[in-house]
């Protein structure tokens, strides 16, 4: 085990010696066959905000979870509009692991994600709207309750509303009560909505 570790470290060191650590060299290393080289490249690309496109492109095809994790960390550290646009792209991926990783990364970028939230919550794809509500779960932003209220008032898709109600039970205030009651009226035949809205109302009443 120790030997394996030493060998792995040696590979990484050799790689660092062999490749240029400038933008072009790192972007090249990002597509290396060796996951260690990819991981180091993803880590070092934090110094190059213009590498966002290359990072996102690699993220969409990356199969190694540890490399994926480093790419996401780098993207959140770069944290500019391009990085967020790339993360939004990941929400449309068919890879559940990538989608979940993007959601977790977006939660860390409240100020950058906020300007896009209105558009995400109005996306034509209900799955993207659900993921957007998932992002709100830990997004420390003063607009969260308003966004959720808009969802349960306007969105016609039951699962988008259901996801928003779950969250309103945690972050909702007295302001949410009329919208929750109206939601129950809108989905009278849906046991889950009745259950979740009642639970949210109970939690809000309990303060």
């Amino acid at each position, binding site marked *: 085990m120790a030997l394996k570790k030493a060998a792995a470290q040696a590979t990484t060191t050799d790689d660092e010696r062999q490749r240029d650590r400038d933008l072009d060299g790192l972007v090249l290393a990002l597509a290396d066959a060796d996951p260690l080289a990819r991981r180091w490249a993803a880590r070092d690309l934090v110094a190059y905000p213009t590498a966002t496109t290359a990072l996102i492109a690699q993220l969409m095809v990356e199969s190694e979870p540890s490399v994926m994790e480093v790419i996401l960390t780098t993207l959140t550290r770069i944290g500019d509009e391009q990085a967020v646009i790339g993360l939004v792209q990941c929400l449309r991926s*068919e890879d*559940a*692991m990538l*989608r*979940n990783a993007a*959601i*977790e990364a977006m939660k860390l970028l409240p100020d950058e994600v906020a300007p896009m939230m209105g558009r995400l919550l109005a996306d034509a794809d*209900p*799955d993207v709207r*659900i*993921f957007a509500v*998932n992002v709100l779960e830990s997004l420390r932003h003063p607009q969260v309750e308003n966004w959720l209220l808009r969802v349960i008032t306007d969105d016609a898709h*039951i*699962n988008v509303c*259901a*996801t928003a*109600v*779950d969250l309103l*039970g945690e972050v909702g205030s007295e302001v949410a009560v009329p919208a929750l009651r109206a939601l129950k009226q809108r989905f009278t035949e*849906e*046991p*889950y*909505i*009745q*259950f*979740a809205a*009642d*639970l*949210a109302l109970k939690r809000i009443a309990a303060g």
Partner: protein
Amino acid sequence: MGVTLKRILVIDDAATVRLYHRGILEAAGFAVSEAINGLEALERVAEAPFDLYVVDINMPKLDGYGFLRELRSKDIPQAPAIMVSTEAAANDQKLAYVSGANLYLIKPVRPERLLAHVLTLLGLSVAPRDPHQGRHQ
């Protein structure tokens, strides 16, 4: 006396969904445990395997597909798994079955529907308890 309750593990990162499924299944006489993601579910399984799993797809740390793949690779008594998700895409359903799910249901699942599938997968003709006597709500 001597009757062992069937054990069901509900795996979902949404607390309300866990509570909802738990309420339906406990009212019908099943022993229900919860896990908030695939990793925590694997820890529960390591303690003692379950008779049935109700699994969400999108969860942080380890999603439902990953959980099922790990579960099915283990040398333990295998049990049926119902994958429950908001996603209706054919690819998600295919992936669910490839990962080891026995059934794919789209949320929200009505109580009588969930119960009927659970009974079928467990080979039971009736629930251990009349669910209408103890149902939440």
